[in-house]
């Protein structure tokens, strides 16, 4: 299978000739618009009669609503749940056995379950006036005990987020492969590891402009959304409308990362409001709303034991993972995607004979946990890779050695791991060997022995992950969530002047798809990339798609574009043969023209003839035309597996707790890269977010459930000076299952850095007896650990 794929890829892979096809390092087409400030985001949309909406949000994490008091002067501008006739709550179910469903009212009814939950909406000509009205609304709330600690929330007697459940567990899962076989291993390391709650923080927040057109009997929702078709399906369910009555337009979007894949109560509210009031409505999320009321992610806790032999060979992993899922199950991903996925992805690319993992998705009085770039993988990678370093320390081996001993080997590909994940291709040990060589592991060990002039301590850390991407029907049907991806579709249309329009249901919000999908089309049809328009982000203009998530777009939409372009090319070829008066079997489509033995005709001439001069076509021409829609699925839909080895060198100041990243190397394998420049950008951006997870980002809560980082003064994001100039190295092992051998790579950059950096910090501080098992690694946590280690040493002496 692998050889066949490589042959096929070689045959299809001809980017070199024009410099615009698959593999070309093209600058992004969309940057001409975006970098000149000519992008059009939701907040840029102006409609006549537009009114602004501000929400009254719950100031408490958990309370019963006794009353909502609207001043007389503002009656008619304020709407509460009592006004929302016929609106259904947001329900994101899962078919996994035992899953408990939450109902998220779009405006709170009965109880509020998180700070920032929507209670009322206020409209006014400007946002400032709408906020004035919101401030005048008073809430009569009876405060209830808040559930803020996911571990305590599991215990009997805890306050309950959803009383009728009887406990706070959305879902518990158990997975086991013969853990008893590992128990006699000579090395057994047990730890608790956790990652902080974060906020995704795209440059642009969410935003909605809603309007209703009575002529078309259609609601149009402009929304900063990654998955406009899914938003439409969700809206139709909540509003009780036909899907055709709703059009969702997602214009330019300033970063998604998962936050913009979620159906928002605000979207439902504004849809209702514009139909109720008869004029356009706007709500633009501000940064405080973003931090407090939305976009939370990443809060994981692991109790994990790793069993190994003295030579570092893994014997098994036993883990109990808990994820703080927040108050509600978010549409369409559900409240259990994160935790339940931990069980299947924790073993990663490592071989082991025994495994057990129990997971809990726990409801708390915090905002819903959303799938953030990397989804559960960042936490899983952090937990497992930190544990492997402890195994190495216990075995007296280099961390790299332990990993090389256990990684899946290239000759084992394709490989089914212990949780039956199907690894399509790759050479994981080679990626690690390259990373270790490029970071200069031996030189660093030498430097560590000498010590630093400034009394800082140097450490080196590595981490490896695999990123299952573009997994489809066979994987998601089991989850039974509101969205299961099937065939991805694309439409390709030749215009009368020989240009190419591609309509695709995924969306681009930083991924550069206006460029990369054009490169795919160019690869097939030879149309100049400058003459290819990519139409995205509009349910009225594009085929249905689950949208952009799970690093699926290049595999799925790229595959669909290739498939549609092949069919379009075939139709053009048959018309061209007629025009050349050749037997269709004797002509080929090459470099944008149909060639036969006696001449050629360009796609442009074929299109012109088809649309503008049909009198020149013979009567028996194929009537199919030059516009096609095709569906695509990879040969296997269990997903592509891209991967990388990250290596970091840090300097840690044990006195001040400051961590500086001195060097960073990434060796990644994303299969065949459609555009290495775009991939580099994806990796750099992911790295920045991973550094945020490792060192800066944290949304803490107090015991009453109040979020404590409510502005960017308290919620720290890495900036340009915190992100090092990482060195990237690409390997390109094709996937045997996809068009061109591509793999999804959108998330990987954000997965490995927390583990690599934490391992480096721990490597630096290990001689002091310090071990940090919690992200982010803040100066305070470092110094507290250093002081604790000193106390421990003194009491031991």
């Amino acid at each position: 299978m692998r050889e066949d794929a490589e042959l096929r890829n070689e045959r299809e892979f001809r980017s070199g000739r024009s410099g615009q096809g698959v593999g070309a390092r093209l600058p992004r087409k969309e940057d001409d618009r975006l970098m000149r400030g000519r992008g059009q985001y939701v907040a840029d949309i102006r409609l006549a009669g537009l009114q602004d909406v501000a929400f009254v949000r719950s100031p408490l994490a958990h309370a019963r609503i006794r009353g909502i008091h609207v001043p007389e002067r503002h009656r008619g501008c304020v709407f509460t749940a009592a006004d929302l006739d016929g609106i259904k709550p947001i329900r994101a179910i899962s078919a996994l056995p035992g899953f408990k469903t939450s109902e998220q009212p779009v405006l709170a009814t009965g109880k509020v379950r998180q700070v920032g939950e929507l209670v009322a909406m206020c409209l006014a000509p400007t946002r400032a006036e709408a906020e004035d009205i919101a401030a005048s609304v008073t809430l009569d709330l009876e405060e209830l005990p808040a559930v803020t600690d996911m571990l305590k929330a599991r215990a009997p007697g805890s306050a309950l987020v959803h009383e009728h459940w009887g406990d706070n567990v959305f879902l518990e899962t158990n997975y086991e492969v013969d853990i008893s076989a590992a128990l006699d291993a000579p090395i057994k390391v047990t730890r608790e590891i956790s990652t902080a709650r974060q906020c995704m923080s795209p440059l642009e927040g969410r935003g909605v402009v809603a309007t209703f057109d009575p002529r078309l009997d259609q609601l149009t929702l402009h929304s900063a959304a990654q998955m406009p078709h899914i938003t439409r399906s969700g809206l139709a369910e909540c509003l009780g409308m036909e899907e055709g009555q709703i059009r969702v337009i997602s214009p330019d979007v300033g970063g998604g990362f998962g936050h913009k894949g979620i159906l928002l109560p605000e979207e439902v509210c504004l849809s209702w409001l514009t139909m109720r009031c008869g004029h356009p409505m706007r709500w633009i999320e501000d940064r405080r709303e973003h931090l407090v009321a939305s976009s939370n992610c990443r809060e994981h806790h692991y109790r994990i034991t790793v069993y190994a032999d003295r030579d570092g060979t893994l014997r098994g992993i036993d883990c109990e993972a808990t994820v703080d899922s927040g108050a509600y199950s978010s549409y369409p991903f559900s409240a259990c995607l994160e935790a339940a996925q931990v069980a299947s992805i924790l073993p990663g690319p490592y071989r082991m004979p025994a495994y057990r993992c129990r997971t809990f998705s726990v409801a708390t009085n915090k905002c819903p946990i959303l799938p953030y770039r990397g989804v559960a993988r960042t936490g899983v990678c952090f937990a497992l890779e930190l544990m492997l370093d402890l195994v190495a320390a216990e075995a007296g081996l280099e961390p790299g050695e332990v990993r090389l001993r256990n990684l899946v080997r290239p000759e084992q590909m394709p490989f089914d791991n212990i949780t039956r994940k199907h690894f399509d291709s790759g050479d994981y040990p080679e990626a690690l060997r390259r990373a270790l060589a490029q970071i200069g592991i031996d030189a660093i060990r030498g430097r560590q022995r000498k010590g630093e002039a400034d009394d800082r301590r140097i450490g080196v850390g590595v981490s490896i992950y695999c990123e299952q991407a573009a997994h489809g029907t066979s994987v998601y049907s089991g989850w039974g969530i509101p969205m299961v991806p099937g065939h991805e579709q694309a439409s390709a249309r030749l215009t009368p002047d020989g240009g190419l329009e591609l309509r695709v249901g995924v969306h681009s919000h930083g991924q550069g798809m206006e460029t990369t999908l054009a490169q795919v089309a160019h690869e097939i049809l030879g149309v100049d990339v400058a003459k290819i328009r990519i139409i995205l982000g509009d349910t009225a203009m594009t085929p249905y798609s689950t949208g952009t998530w799970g690093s699926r777009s290049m595999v799925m939409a790229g595959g669909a574009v290739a498939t549609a372009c092949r069919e379009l090319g075939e139709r053009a070829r048959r018309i061209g043969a007629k025009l050349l008066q050749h037997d269709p079997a004797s002509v080929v489509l090459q470099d944008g023209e149909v060639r036969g033995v006696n001449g050629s005709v360009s796609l442009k001439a074929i299109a012109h003839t088809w649309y503008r001069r049909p009198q020149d076509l013979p009567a028996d021409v194929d009537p199919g035309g030059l516009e096609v829609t095709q569906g695509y699925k990879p040969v296997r839909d269990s997903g592509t597996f891209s991967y990388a080895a990250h290596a970091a060198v840090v300097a840690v100041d044990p006195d001040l707790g400051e961590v500086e990243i001195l060097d960073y190397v990434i060796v990644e394998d994303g299969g065949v890269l459609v555009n290495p420049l775009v991939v580099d950008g994806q990796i750099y951006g992911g790295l920045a977010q991973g550094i945020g997870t490792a060192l800066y980002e944290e949304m803490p809560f107090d015991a009453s459930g109040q979020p404590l980082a409510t502005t960017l003064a308290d919620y720290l994001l890495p900036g340009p000076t915190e992100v090092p100039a990482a060195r990237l190295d690409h390997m390109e092992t094709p996937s045997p299952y996809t068009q061109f051998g591509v793999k999804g790579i959108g998330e990987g950059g954000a997965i490995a850095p927390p583990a690599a950096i934490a391992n480096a910090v721990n490597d630096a501080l290990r001689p002091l007896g310090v071990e940090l098992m919690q992200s982010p690694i803040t100066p305070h946590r470092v110094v507290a650990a250093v002081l604790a280690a000193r106390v421990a040493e003194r009491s031991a002496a």
Partner: protein
Amino acid sequence: MKPASFAYERPCDLTAALSMLAAGSGSAKIIAGGQSLGPMLNLRLVQPELIVDISALAELKRAEIFGGELVLGALVTHADIEDGRAADVTRGAMRGVAANIAYRAVRNRGTIGGSLSHADPAADWISALAALGARVTLRSLAGARTMPVEAFVVGALESALHTGEIVEAVHVPARSVSAHWGYAKSCRKTGEFAHAIGAVLIDPAAASARIVIGAIDTAPIVITDAAELFGGRIAADYKQRFDVRVADALLAKAGIDDAAQRHIHVGVLKRAVQEAAA
């Protein structure tokens, strides 16, 4: 995050500004660079009825040396000091502090008077100027009064300013040729507010020192009788004699219970002392 509505005035001279403040009787706020007040307005943490924009007051933009003392008008920006446009009597000490305040965009607009008035414990000037022995002049329609910076900052976001009063100028004494200066801070990232500041002005020849521990939850700790921090005397070997235990005890006495926090503060102060001795 839009401010509540307010009235706005931009007077052309100080007397007019003071009259407006007096008329506002406590419901007026002064805006200069707006680098702190802007976000506070947007978050509705403050909801003044009147904003008095003093950015047109030419008399508050002067920087002059009188009798060896530098008088900086309240509207002198951090960037004016960083770039050397404002005169200096501290032999570069203030330039060094200014250059590391937040980001350049903040320094372009943020003013020394605004920073002092806001009295954020984590900001640079309240610590640095206290260590340099600076004083502030406050003016109202009733007249002017002058006090040391350490007396001006009363607590977190609390100053000695009365209603109707404005920071007019900062008086910075000349740094003597024998006085060593050290300033260190620890920030989570570039441009972020510090979580620990150490500022020291040590004159071994005069056996005197001004030591400031800043970015604690309240007004900075200012030690003018600093011999105990250096084993009982301040001399040329002060770097070696710096006693971290005494510094730690000072922080504990100031109510900082968290040992790691104290450790970081002491570490930063030690860096400032080392820098002074370098």
